């Protein structure tokens, strides 16, 4: 493409033009975000009642998810069928029965059907729409949506496989561990705009090693560290992944000795922000999931969040964080989740480092199309690993990406 050739070393190298090239980005929008994928849109608990809506997105496109009159969830492009005006401007809201475009008052029901428009039969015998104008042909543009256990996904391609098949049995197992069927409780939102390519956010989660080097909090208090019992699990495409780990201790050992950011002397004056209770089956205390193409599902101790990626050109993306718990959480658990949320988000003691470092990486990529990143930790293979001293999830990701992108 445009004379771009992937480095001969293969999936263990990532040429920097994938982060900067406009033509590559346009192809990503077409093949990935507008292709046969499922993008995360919302949590069901954000739109509990008929008429509740959320303005969300698939790739660059603004999308509405609406709780319909019968309780089902409907998805539409957020665009009036008349002259293209964005129908809803608020991120979330409620309408009684109808969406009304402010420009010419085209009026749609919760199922997206056009139910009325002023002057359709004219005024005092003049004007009006042609006799053959059919309201049934001019509803909102529907998009396929599928909800599973509290989270809602949408696609712009009717050819997308069923959601369960798209995730595959293995990733579905991880998904169902967090979305275990209990009703969810919305705790709040954070949103940030980062000056970096959208793929860097997924890579950040798949890059196990950085957590043990960049993040002093993870390293020192053992929340997510390569010397802990850990696993990397992927689906067949390599595009979805789960990084699984058990919390370790603040101890100097063979691993932490090599981590300059490990602070043996560091103590928290108030350790409540990292105090956790076990709430999921199994020994894992953290699982970080990447669901292709736009969702990071975070379970770090007791802080749970979806992070939705919204691409905005090759050099910029928005990250929408939705923190949640379960409807049956007691007050103590809710407080725990809210305190641990200090680790995450745009001011997170851990994740602020990520937001900053991806922008710094992007700075390095500009005017560096001839160079490539090296993902060779742990070898050059693509197989699941029972440790975290590996870039395998990055290699598998780029193998899958190259197939989709034909690169």
């Amino acid at each position: 493409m445009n004379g771009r050739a992937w480095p001969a070393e293969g999936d263990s190298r990532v040429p920097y033009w994938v982060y900067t090239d406009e033509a590559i980005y346009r192809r990503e929008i077409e093949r990935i975000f507008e292709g046969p994928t499922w993008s995360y849109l919302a949590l069901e608990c954000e739109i509990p009642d008929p008429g509740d809506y959320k303005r969300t997105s698939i790739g660059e496109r603004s999308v509405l998810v609406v709780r319909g009159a019968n309780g089902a969830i409907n998805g539409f492009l957020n665009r009036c069928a008349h002259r293209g005006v964005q129908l809803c401007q608020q991120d979330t809201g409620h309408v009684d029965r109808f969406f009304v475009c402010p420009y010419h008052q085209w009026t749609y029901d919760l199922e997206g059907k056009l139910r009325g428009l002023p002057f359709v039969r004219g005024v005092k015998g003049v004007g009006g729409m042609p006799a053959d104008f059919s309201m049934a042909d001019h509803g909102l543009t529907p998009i396929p949506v599928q909800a599973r256990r509290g989270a809602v996904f949408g696609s712009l391609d009717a050819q997308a496989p069923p959601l369960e098949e798209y995730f595959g049995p293995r990733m579905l197992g991880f998904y169902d561990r967090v979305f275990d069927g209990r009703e969810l409780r919305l705790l709040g939102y954070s949103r940030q705009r980062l000056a970096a390519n959208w793929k860097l956010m997924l890579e950040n989660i798949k890059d196990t090693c950085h957590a043990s080097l960049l993040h002093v909090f993870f390293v020192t208090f053992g929340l997510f560290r390569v010397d802990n019992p850990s696993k990397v699990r992927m689906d067949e495409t390599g595009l979805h992944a789960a990084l699984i780990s058990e919390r370790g201790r603040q101890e100097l050992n063979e691993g932490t000795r090599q981590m300059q950011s490990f602070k043996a002397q560091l103590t928290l004056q108030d350790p409540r922000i990292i105090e956790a209770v076990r709430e999921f089956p199994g020994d894992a205390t953290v699982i970080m999931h990447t669901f292709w193409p736009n969702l990071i599902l975070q379970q770090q101790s007791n802080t749970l969040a979806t992070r939705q990626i919204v691409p905005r050109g090759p050099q910029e993306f928005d990250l929408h964080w939705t923190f949640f718990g379960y409807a049956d959480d007691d007050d103590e658990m809710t407080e725990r989740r809210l305190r641990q949320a200090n680790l995450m988000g745009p001011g997170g003691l851990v994740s602020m480092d990520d937001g900053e470092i991806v922008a710094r990486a992007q700075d390095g990529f500009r005017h560096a199309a001839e160079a490539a990143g090296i993902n060779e930790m742990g070898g050059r293979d693509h197989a699941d690993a029972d440790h975290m001293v590996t870039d395998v999830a990055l290699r598998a990701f780029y193998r899958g990406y190259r197939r989709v992108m034909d690169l």
Partner: protein
Amino acid sequence: MSLREEVEDFYAEYGEIIDGGELERWPELFAEPCLYRIVSKENHDRGLPLSLMRCDGMGMLRDRALASQKLNVYAPRAWRHSITQIRAREEHGRIAVRANFAVFETLQDEHTRVLCAGRYVDTLVRTEAGLRLREKICIYDAALIPGSIVMPL
């Protein structure tokens, strides 16, 4: 000195301490038991409890100050607080303060930008050391933060 002058002096010092890189002194401006929160207007208006930063008590304030100064990794930058429209009312030994804030952020190779703007909803108390914060809620207007918030507002 009038109440307004006292309170204005306090907020001048508050901004100076953060902007001047003396974050280790930031917790000194609070009095236990204290609460510090940064919360989006959206979460605040909808009654959603999530904070962008939340410190329950002096220990968490000190941990946050230390992290910001020494542990977190972020690009070098200058911060500048502008705290205006200060109104204070003293009742039953507490001073309720409302003020607007804007924080300007300047990164290397970039123009100065508004990081965020919003309002403070604070409670001050009188101590032997002077006015101190019992509670500080920073409610920021924007639904979208440019980059990260690497220090307290």
